[in-house]
């Protein structure tokens, strides 16, 4: 590959990887968009009665986790490995707390079952698909955290860190839309 037609420098490779990751996220966004459309189609201008306090708490946890993720990535880009490990650990803990809040609490106290009506179907599908992405994000972060601990990344070369961070923020962005869709918009029906 030394005599490639296109220079195979790390910077070139990095930009290629970036485009690939963002296209994947774009593709994934269509799936979440489909879920959003489903919510609008089946619920219209109504929403189920959900625990507002819990909704605000889990949303805050996810947003704060994004803040720490950003901090961690910035730390890595500036040679602060300790800061990265700390920030990522907080992110992981908050991510798991989010999962516990949604699946462990919200799913149990929801005033409808999975198979009861369209409220149940859409609510469990949207939160479930999102939680699945949070879970994969946590696993991704654990892998990156472990590799960083063993010194696999440097200031110049830490694409895996960037990818994990961008993916994490993407999952956050999805929730930015899902939170009002599930908890805020519409009259309680």
């Amino acid at each position, binding site marked *: *590959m030394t005599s490639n*037609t*296109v220079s195979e420098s790390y910077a070139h490779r990095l930009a290629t990887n970036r*485009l690939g990751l963002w296209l994947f996220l774009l*593709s994934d966004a269509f*799936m979440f968009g*489909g879920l959003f459309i489903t919510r609008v189609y089946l619920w219209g201008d109504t929403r189920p009665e959900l625990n507002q306090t819990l909704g605000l708490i889990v949303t805050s946890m996810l947003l704060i986790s994004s803040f720490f993720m950003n901090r961690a990535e910035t730390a890595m880009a500036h040679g602060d490995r300790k800061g990265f490990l700390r920030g990522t650990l907080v992110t992981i803990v908050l991510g798991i707390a989010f999962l516990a809040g949604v699946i462990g609490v919200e799913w149990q106290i929801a005033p409808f079952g999975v198979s009861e009506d*369209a409220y149940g179907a859409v609510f469990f599908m949207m939160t479930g698909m999102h939680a699945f992405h949070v879970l994969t994000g946590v696993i991704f972060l654990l892998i990156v955290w472990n*590799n960083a601990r063993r010194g696999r990344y440097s200031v110049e070369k830490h694409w895996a860190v960037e990818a994990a961070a961008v993916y994490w923020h993407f999952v956050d962005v999805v929730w930015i839309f899902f939170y009002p869709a599930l908890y805020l918009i519409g009259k309680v029906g």
Partner: protein
Amino acid sequence: MSKKTNFLSLGLVRGVFAMLVGMPLGMGLVTLIRLAVGLPAWNAEPAWVVGGLVGAVAFMIGVGSLSDWFKLAAGGELPEHPAGAVNGWARYFNFTLDHKVIGVQYGVLSLLMFSIAGLFALIFRTELVQTGLQYLNADEFNTLISLHGIVMIMAILLGVAAMSNYLTPLMIGANDMAFPRLNSFAFWINVPSGIFLLSSLFLGGFDTGWTGYPPLSVRAPLGIQMFFLGVYLFGLSSILGALNIIVTVVRLRAPGMTFFRMPIFVWSAFATALISATATQLIALSFQMVMFQRLFGMGFFDPARGGNVLLFQHLFWFYSHPAVYVFVLTGLGTISELLPVFVRKPLFGYRWVAVSSLGIALIGFFVWAHHMFTSGMSEFLRVPFMYSTLLVAVPTGVKFFSWVATMWRGKMSFETPMLFVLGAISIFLVGGLSGPPNAVVATDLHLHDTYFIVGHFHATMFGGFVFPFMAAVYFWFPKVTGRMFNERLGKLHFWLMFPAFFVQSFGQMFIGLFGMRRRIADYDPALGFEQPNWLITIAGMVIALSVLIFFINLVYSTKRGPVAVANPWRSRSPEWLLPSPIPEHNYPQPLEIVGEPYDYGLVGSVFVRIPSTAVIEEPVK
């Protein structure tokens, strides 16, 4: 050069074994979970679904597709291009990074699925020759038409991927795809997918047609879950493959290869990939929702619980209509690519043709509801969707005018690939012209769900994919194998397939206009459709015979064909600068772009050259 390869060490074989282990494991897992939460231990549906998923993952592990990524996750480093582990024929059955091998893998699997789906068609077509049910019952008939549809779609997607994988990096002067491991993953995931689709035959089949509309699909036998799984996996393949194509085209073009100097095929592969990478998510989502309605009783499509079946149709067609542009755009790109070669004239309106592919892809996102004019959706949606659908004819027309103008006063020669190109153009014209009657609400209300639709889409599929694909196989056969195919058999293939296709397609449209319903196992003898149905079936058999000749030609010529000359068609495309078959890392030196791609017949013009080697220059007459 190929060392003796043990059969059991082939990736494919290892994958299948792993799958055979994985599926029972998954089934056991479900059973254990069910026991743990106090449900009755055995339930066939979740067991097969989870078993299938675990089996698919096991297959990918067995084939060796995931080992590099596991290594990476464990903190290892990966070489950009590891030294070729396997050589010779065995690499076609193994995990490999070479985009040309993957392209051939796609192509062969495509032809295999194509034959299976065609066989299903012959079985149920023969049943239709006479009224009454002779040797199939209604359920078997329905399963066969459904599988014919979906397996054909899979075959076409594989064929599209075959062409874009093999050709795109070569045409833009790259040495491989942007993500070779992802590329190989995207191919191999199709194998479990195909196994699942076909296994539905043995799990009760499914009687919904390939569209799988609820509420029918909610009540269908277990086979439909395997159908969903299969679609899910090849959809994943489609998304990842498309993503790879986009990144490759954007990032790996040779210096000087601007967007408007790319071979036109690359444009269509790019436009195709834009659709596949995004819209495919929605068919997956719609099928997943039906799957979950069956597994967990979620009420998405149950009106009694506030669900709505129309939601499924909206989500489903948001992919499944653009999907037809995925099928045809690559084919139309092939036509535009090959036509100038055999006419020895520049492609007329290169820029317009290039942009028209993007235009079709874009408009394709806004036409889905024309499949739903009779579904009971809000009536005000009908007219906007009618107009957006008719708008598709504009960029498609651009392509047609370009082809006609390219041929105008050209020096045509009629080798087999050219015959298939011309056949494709004429058939696609029929397919295209029979489209607007379906798009216009007033006529569609009559035509909906009749055999006219069947005739229409078979014409678009044959003109937009099958014929161009055959042209491409013949055209690049010497490049892939280094040998020439048998021209006489190739012409025989064409002259059997071409007229037979017209009989079939016009026959279908004819009986459709007179009221023959599609997807129906039996019809009233008083309608007088026995004779046309008989003709259609005979035509279908002739097509099958011609495809058989095609296969014989391919197999025989791969082994015994005469060694091909360096550039048998005098094409200007960069891949013909390289020896055939092409060595593992395509270009020894960076490609230099010095001219325009389609200046055929312009004396002394050059498109590309590799420094210190030959150029393809237009000769003086």
